């Protein structure tokens, strides 16, 4: 869907993006992760053609990004905002028409969404009469009303209460199932980890990592396992086929050890432990995105 190639964006005094390249696959959910100030919003603004890069190019379905693509993108900025004194219905239709919908088309779609999200009674209300959460909901509708192929959401869940956040999450997943490509941007990595098919990590204007979430996490596995057993605490004398990293005692006479393997497999571990104790669980430790990020940043520094 999106091919981002060697994007450089220079602001007075600092470089917001330095040679960033990404591939966003069609129909997938892509996470743009990184701490605040890493350059995520700069990149998103370039994709939305709000600003232009100093060098590099972006291809939208293989075509160089141009004005005609604007109507196929839905954008929810991090800083939410609507006209405070304008009625919601009118405002949504206006925004949809700016994205190329006809008035009738926009009205029809808006009715559908308002019904779906229980907002029917808001039509004649002004934005300033709504609560913050309601405003966010309205803004989400404005983002997806014109049925964009690519939906860009900058910090989508900030500002929502848990119930609405869940609601919006479900809507996003449904849109994705119907074929829309989603591009998330967030600094709270754990919040989108389970949603994303692929991610890219941005740190200090550079892309430091990207790929499928599964692949990344698998590639960051380092033969570490958790084993939980019930029984007396085992004593390791060094003859065991693994290295013990930590030991913790749990409830009901259970113990958990974190171990690291070198040449052998988990089977060897089980073989060694089975005669000695009762094993409840053996689990491979897969690092979280947050841990990977920290490890990666430390590596660079």
């Amino acid at each position, binding site marked *: 869907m999106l091919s981002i190639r060697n994007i450089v964006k220079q602001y007075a005094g600092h470089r917001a993006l330095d040679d960033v390249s990404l591939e966003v696959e069609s129909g997938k959910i892509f996470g743009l992760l990184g701490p605040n100030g890493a350059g995520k919003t700069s990149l998103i603004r370039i994709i939305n053609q709000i*600003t*232009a890069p*100093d060098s590099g190019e972006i291809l939208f379905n293989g075509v160089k990004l141009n004005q005609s693509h604007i109507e196929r*993108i839905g*954008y929810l*900025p991090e800083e*939410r*905002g609507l006209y405070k004194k304008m009625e919601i219905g009118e405002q949504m239709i206006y925004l949809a028409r*700016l994205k190329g919908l006809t008035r009738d088309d926009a009205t029809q779609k808006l009715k559908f969404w308002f019904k779906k999200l229980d907002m029917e009674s808001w039509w004649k209300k002004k934005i300033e009469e709504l609560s913050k959460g309601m405003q966010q909901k309205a803004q989400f509708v404005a983002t997806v009303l014109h049925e964009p192929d690519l939906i860009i959401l900058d910090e989508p869940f900030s500002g929502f209460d848990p119930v609405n956040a869940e609601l919006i999450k479900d809507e996003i997943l449904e849109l994705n199932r119907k074929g829309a490509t989603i591009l998330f941007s967030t600094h709270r990595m754990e919040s989108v980890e389970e949603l994303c098919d692929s991610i890219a990590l941005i740190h200090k204007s550079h892309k430091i990592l990207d790929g499928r979430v599964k692949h990344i996490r698998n590639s960051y596995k380092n033969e570490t396992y958790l084993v939980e057993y019930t029984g007396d605490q085992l004593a390791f004398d060094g003859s065991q086929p693994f290295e013990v990293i930590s030991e913790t005692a749990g409830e009901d006479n259970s113990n958990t050890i974190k171990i690291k393997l070198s040449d052998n497999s988990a089977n060897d571990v089980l073989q060694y432990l089975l005669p000695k104790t009762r094993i409840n669980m053996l689990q491979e430790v897969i690092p979280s995105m947050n841990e990977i990020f920290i490890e990666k940043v430390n590596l660079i520094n």
Partner: protein
Amino acid sequence: MNKILLIIQREYVTRVRKKAFLVMMFAVPLLVAGMFKLIAYVAKDSDQISKPQTVKVIDESHQFEGKLKNAKNIQFVPTNEPLEQAKAGLKDNEDLSVLLISKDYAHKPVQFFSKKKPSFTLTGEVENQMNQIASTNTMLANHIDTALINKAQKNKVSVSAMEVTDAGTKDADVGASMGVGVACAILIYMSLFIYGAQVMRGVIEEKTSRIIEVIISSVKPFQLMLGKIIGVGLVGLTQFGAWIILSVLATKIGGQHASGGMAQFLVTLQNLPFGYILFCFLFYFITGYLLYSALFAAVGSAVDSETETQQFMFPITMPLLFTYLLSVTVLFRAPDSPLAVWLSMIPFTAPVAMMIRIPFGGVGPWELAISMTLMVVGFLFTTYVAARIYRVGVLMYGKKASFKELAKWFFYKE
């Protein structure tokens, strides 16, 4: 292009629907009508004697007996009643007054009694006649031939201002030209400010409510700026259109009651080339508005709240304010002075300066053509500069902008 139309439509409709717009639309013509009524009323009250007035004359000096002549609506009645008795009759009759001429009238003031303050016409008439009679008396006492003096006094020269135009000569009523010129200058000055500030406020609103990012992910910043400027401008034109129509109606109604000097004023007003003045007014309003509102939009984009606009507003509005103050104090008395001509050429000052000059008719076609061309060049230039600042400014938050900063924004690449 279609999107600009959408923006224009929104900007226009949301403003026209406001109550303040309707209130302004009717309040101003009502004020105009009220003003005409007031002028007509005052003029009638002071200059005209509507009912016959009787003046009882108590002449203790006996110098004026039989010499006061009845004038239109004024009748002089000599009486020998004592003053107190004569004054007693005044309380019941507004149209009666008493003139007391003491023996030593040359040194002691002549007194005029009436129930209400007498009109200037009445006292003026009395004063006039008495002065003439007194001087005739003095001349007679000194054996001067009054017939000769009368003849000498007939050599009265009156200067009547005639303007030579292509159509022949016509009365040049400087007063009406001045009035129209100053009124146009004030109107254009105020409207440039009012509608320019509306554009600025609109930009600030979009910026502070943060909707700006949603909008410019759909349209170019320049489209948004232009749409806003045109939309607000159309609101201004609508307002003017309504005012002109309603004011003409109001004047027509108010004018029916006007008489004397007022009626004459209205007649001279009608002799001015209204079509030409209106065309120039609209031209200078539109181009001046485009020129200034672009700058106002740039200022709006550079700040986070209206209170921060001060530092930028001052230099922008200086030329306009300066011309305006000069216009209403000096220029309207010297509409073709070099200063006025120069100011009417510079695009930043021309809208006001030119509107002062145009009703006097002294602006040549070439002058007008140059000034108008410069206006168009001027607004294209400010729009270009403003658009470059605007596109960067609207996305800048929490940064206190200085002129240096604005200059930097101007040179930013896309």
